[in-house]
């Protein structure tokens, strides 16, 4: 967006299969947007600007998962163009909700939605960016936390590591003085295996965490699944609990498959 900014790092935002919500987070950072725009050179961000400059770019933010042959090729090219490549959100980092196709017959899916299936070209799997190219940093969340995005950009400008938590939602609950809804009320909650970042939103709103931020660093999903079973959840319910927005992340995948085939 800037032409008078020779020494500012260039940022580019690219979209693959996704809802646009993660890149919208940048426009939703109402207090920081003009500041960010002053500190970096936004070279490619079609959701916000008509001005589109060719690469290479210093920082590439990637939203969305890979679901088509064309996109599988495009990500290779973008990796070459971006000095630092960051995935933003559950689609880019774990395949997203559209990865639910990965356990089904995608041709049947196409027939459900489209009247003339032969025109639709899509891959059988929805996969995260890191299955295709090396990724320098992953921002979790469905959607990402906009403060994480600002922290990431700030850290990159300062040449330091971004300060983003990798512990579980449980810690955030403790910090917020939430009474544990699983212990106190027997509500099924993925908080113990889910990475922090949302601020323990769901338990704060009287419902169990449903895993938007994906698996934390060392999740014991098997133990949690046992607990859910003790709380009275059926195998099908446990399978569905792990088949959400980060279903294709391997820890969640493994547990959902165990319970699916029980």
């Amino acid at each position, binding site marked *: *967006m*800037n032409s008078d900014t020779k020494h500012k790092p260039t940022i580019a935002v690219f*979209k*693959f*299969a*996704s*809802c*646009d*919500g*993660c890149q*919208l987070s940048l*426009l*939703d950072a*109402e*207090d920081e947007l*003009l500041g960010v*725009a002053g500190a970096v050179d*936004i070279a490619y961000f*079609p*959701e*916000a*600007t*008509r*001005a*589109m400059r060719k690469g290479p770019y210093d920082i590439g933010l990637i939203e969305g998962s890979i*679901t*088509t042959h064309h*996109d599988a090729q495009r990500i290779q090219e973008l990796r070459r163009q971006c000095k630092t490549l960051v995935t933003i959100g559950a689609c880019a980092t774990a395949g*997203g*909700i*559209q990865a*639910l*196709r990965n356990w*089904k017959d*995608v041709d*049947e*899916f*196409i027939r*459900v*939605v*489209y*009247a*003339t299936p032969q*025109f*639709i070209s*899509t891959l059988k799997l929805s996969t995260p960016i890191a299955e295709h190219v090396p990724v320098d940093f992953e921002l979790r969340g*469905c*959607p990402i936390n906009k403060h994480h995005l600002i922290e990431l950009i700030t850290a990159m400008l300062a040449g330091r590591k971004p300060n983003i938590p990798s512990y579980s939602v449980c810690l955030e609950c403790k910090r917020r003085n939430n009474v544990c809804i699983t212990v106190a009320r027997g509500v099924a909650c993925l908080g113990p295996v889910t990475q922090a970042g*949302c601020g323990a*939103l*769901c338990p*704060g*709103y*009287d*419902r169990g965490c*449903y895993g938007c931020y994906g698996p934390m660093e060392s999740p014991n999903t098997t133990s949690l699944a046992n607990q859910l079973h003790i709380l009275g959840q059926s195998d099908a*319910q446990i399978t*569905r609990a792990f088949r*959400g*927005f980060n279903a294709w992340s391997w820890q969640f995948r493994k547990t959902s498959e165990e319970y699916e085939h029980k």
Partner: protein
Amino acid sequence: MSGRTRTIRVDTLARVEGEGALYIKLAGERVADVKLKIYEPPRFFEAFLRGRHFSEVPDITARICGICPIAYQMSAIHAIERALGTRIDPAVRLLRRLFYCGEWIESHTLHVYMLHAPDFLGYQDVIAMARDHRAVVERALRLKKVGNRIVTLLGGREIHPISAAVGGFYKVPTKQQLRELVEDLEWALDTSLETARWTANLEFPDFEQDYEFVALRHPDEYPFNEGRLVSNRGLDIDAAEYEDHFVEMHVKHSNALHSVVRGRGSYLVGPMARFNLNFDKLPEVARQVAREVKLAVPVKNPFRSIMVRSVEIVFACAEALRIVGEYEPPPTPRVEVPNQAGVGQAITEAPRGILYHRYAMDERGLIIAAKIIPPTSQNQKRIEDDLRDYAVRLMAWPLEEASWKCEQAIRNYDPCISCATHSLKVTVERAEADGV
């Protein structure tokens, strides 16, 4: 005799949500071909919703669109509640309207100032605009933030909020929490009036179309979640009849499903349709500013949709203030909804227009069929019809300017391409193009 051929081509449409491209072929004095290509990959929500429990549906459908997740939660929840015969508390009904006010304020403000206004003022984007109009952009960001504050209070976060549930909300705010919004909302109402006056000073091309406007209409209020579906050409139906009157067509040479009114053709949904069909239901403050800026029903110039959106922000702020003043918390945040079999349809008014959902459930409460028709799929054919008529006027223009004008004509609709789950690689070959 067709003279020279020129092509307007925009490979990546900017300032829209999602990915699309534009291709218009001008042959001499006529438009030979119009293609609005949407290359957003399909995500198959309707297919993978099957087998999920109805209580999970609002969280999943929210992910269709990061810009209007509340719309996807509301249409899903209402359709499921209709299927199961759920009666919600009047206070929950009010909170849902307030929730929608928040989404309209933030989504409309985003579009008016950050996505659409730069076209009128000749900027590539809002950041460039901010260099010359800093105060205007700061005002916009603050107004948008008020919308987001409402959404965050009710739903926990702006994007993919987590509190809306079948039967009500997981948690409802206290009276005091809503009261704390008043100061912001009063500022927002004043600012929305300024916004309406500001948009009125923009320059509009002289371009009108003969539209079929389609929107909800409610006997007592400007529509959000309820009402009959009506049009200016005599349509007046319940949501349950939607699929009898609208057809999704798989167009020849195209991978997209286009919605048309059965037996008629393209139609327009969104702010202009709502405004034209429900002007009498707007609060006086919104009607008054509309009169002041000479926005008279029926508005038929799509470029003026930016003014209509501004008037809808006025409405949303006034409505939010009313609700905040009246609110008494419900006895329980949500009613229990037992599993049972059923089929239900609902239409709600997303910022961009009507959003139709239908679900069928089995006796365990598991989804056996889902149907979702987003506003942008419905407007798609109408956008192309506009472009075909509008491009004719741009024959003498330099290509770059003509192409920018066509982009602006697409942005009149605030298209949300990510929403259009059905729409992949739209390629519309007009009849005129057959011989080309």
